[in-house]
């Protein structure tokens, strides 16, 4: 499911990296996505695995706040159109660099 998420986010043409993986001596790209796999949980029925839930954070960081807002919105639309569940419009996320703003959302896929 991570590969699918990365594929969708990558379709916008910006770098997609795992949250926390950017080296200290590497500059932030002007605009980029990060993701983080919060958990993968299974629900059971009659001793059988019934539903698998994949829970991710998706964040956008950008030097341009409008880009961050707009890109997160576009990502939200694309993911929802492809079966992902997103209950929020987004929230602020912390940035290491004062030059960038961050916006994030939580996305879930059930299978």
């Amino acid at each position, binding site marked *: 499911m991570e590969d699918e998420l990365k594929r969708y986010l990558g379709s916008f043409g910006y770098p997609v990296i795992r949250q926390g993986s950017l080296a200290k001596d590497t500059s932030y790209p002007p605009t980029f996505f990060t993701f*983080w796999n919060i958990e993968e949980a299974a629900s059971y029925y009659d001793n059988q695995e019934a539903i698998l839930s994949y829970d991710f*954070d998706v964040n956008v960081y950008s030097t341009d706040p409008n880009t961050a807002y707009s890109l997160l919105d576009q990502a939200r639309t694309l993911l929802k159109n492809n079966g992902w569940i997103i209950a929020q419009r987004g929230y602020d996320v912390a*940035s*290491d660099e004062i030059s960038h703003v*961050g916006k994030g959302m939580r996305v879930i896929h059930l299978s």
Partner: protein
Amino acid sequence: MAVGGNRTGVKWNKGGALRRNKFRLDTSGIDDLVEKLDGLGGNIQKAVTQALEEAAETVQEDTKEAVKKAYLPAKGQYSGGDTEKSIVDNVKVEWSGTIGEVGVGFDKTQNGAGGFLITGTPRMAPDYKLEDIYVRKRYKSQIVESMKRVINEYITDAMEGRK
């Protein structure tokens, strides 16, 4: 955490990650118990207050422990000391009509790395233990179970005539 409707409710509010305004719990199981206690003439406010305050203390202690173990600098606005000081520690339920609230998590008006630790940054992965407390379902389920135990004690007392 909110119990809706016209019944006495509980709410778990404030604190949490920079990006989230509420530490949300699924309290549907507690709603039913509160209704049962109400039907028995039990003291709902007392029961819910105790349940919330005990749960908040647990979250507070677990948060402090997680922050102590997190990799934070010794000085500066994201230091371990400042982050620990920003943990909400006023474990007192405030009632607004039929809704009780208690604050948990980090005080966003103070210095500290609480928000960073829970959401991570492009250069720092989220702190596993804090994410466990504030994001994942299992910990929250345990908190809700502990609250149910408190309210069940009040139900037992009410059934046995000890109100």
